């Protein structure tokens, strides 16, 4: 009968700690990049200039419909073919950020659509350019509306970060796969990975709930 032996996990704990830290840092940096990129994409996709919105729409569509793994490989293995070699860490963060950014741009656009049109008209009547009214009026409100969706996307980001192990970044999944290959202790490492990812995603969930409470829009609570 299979005997659980958690001491193998303890022996390996420096790598496990490194894995946790790498996952957190990759997720964090990719998350920030995704948020920034998503906001840019959302701005361009709602542009009144047809050509800009069409081009950005197509780019976002293309990236959304391809697997994240292929995107990561494109950065890691494809770019060197055109003489651009980035470190595995950078490739992972860029690919993750780009991929999640496309989903976040969709979320922000739905938030923009939820902001009443009067706000935009009012800001324009005050002489604000489109970009100014976007930054100061529309965008803060749009993001507030969609905090739960953004939280969901960050949860997905943390889970998708496991894919950077394919390009030799030492995150949690890399450590677990290596541990299984070396010691054949499948169940111990699997339980460890489940616990760690549960913690991380649970933490993101908690953060989303807190942010939702802080940034709730009072007008939303009025029953019309």
């Amino acid at each position, binding site marked *: 009968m299979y005997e659980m032996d958690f001491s193998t996990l303890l022996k390996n704990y420096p790598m496990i700690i490194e894995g946790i830290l790498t996952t957190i840092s990759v997720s964090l940096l990719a998350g920030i990049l995704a948020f920034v990129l998503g906001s840019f994409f959302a701005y361009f996709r709602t542009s009144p200039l047809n050509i800009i919105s069409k081009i950005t729409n197509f780019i976002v569509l293309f990236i959304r419909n391809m697997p994240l793994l292929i995107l990561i490989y494109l950065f890691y293995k494809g770019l060197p073919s055109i003489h651009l070699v980035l470190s595995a860490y950078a490739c992972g963060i860029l690919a993750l950020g780009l991929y999640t950014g496309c989903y976040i741009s*969709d979320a922000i656009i739905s938030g923009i659509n939820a902001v009443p049109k009067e706000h935009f008209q009012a800001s324009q009547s005050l002489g604000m350019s489109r970009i100014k009214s976007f930054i100061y009026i529309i965008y803060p409100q749009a993001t507030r509306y969609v905090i739960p969706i953004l939280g969901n996307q960050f949860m997905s980001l943390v889970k998708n970060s496991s894919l950077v192990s394919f390009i030799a970044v030492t995150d949690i999944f890399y450590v677990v796969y290596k541990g*299984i290959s070396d010691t054949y202790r*499948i169940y111990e490492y699997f339980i460890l990975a489940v616990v760690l990812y549960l913690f991380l995603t649970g933490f993101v969930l908690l953060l989303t709930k807190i942010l939702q409470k802080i940034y709730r829009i009072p007008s939303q609570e009025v029953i019309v």
Partner: protein
Amino acid sequence: MTSDVIINNLPFLMKGLLVTLKVSFICIILSLFSGIILGTLRFAKIPLISFIAGLFIDLTRAIPLILFIIFVHFSVSPYLFGYSAFLNYMGIDSLEMYSAIIALVIFNCAYIAEIIRSGLESVGKDQILAAQSLALSKVQVIEHIVLPQALRRIKPSLVAQLVTLVKDTSLASAIDLIELTRACEIVYETSYHEFEVLCFAACVYVSVNFLIQKMFNTDIKC
């Protein structure tokens, strides 16, 4: 830039695409089936069963799919392999395909269960009350009133889940299932034209997903 690499290896790459589509097709059917059951179980709020269903769904949604694929491949599949002659006949004859299908079905079943549950709950409570006032049992209410309306509403989410499933089959390349991503890896490992082959793979995936969304008449932007 030579596209000769792609043209020379096109049969092999198309075989990989076939495997991708086969796995996706089988998985979506099986996970739709189990997802509907699981989702209605959680929705029906039966004392212990709904709690267990909810626990399973939340746990499965918290871990990455690749972890699950590796775990199933290393621990479960060796024991389950070879048990069904029907599956062998259908062309599921390798250990990797077994693991991929089992892992993807269990994983997607949880996501589809959540989609179903949100659809069920979106049907207004007044309809359920009205049906109950007509002395329909709980089961009949779900079967005749709630489920048909819910299924119509959640069609876009289900199609999106199918698209995600097709993309997730690329993860099975980690366990050496020769689907499109792994086939591309094999091609560019020996010929070193990574950029072209990867672009080709990306285009194929995007086209397949576009086709799926068009086929079900959903807006491509979803």
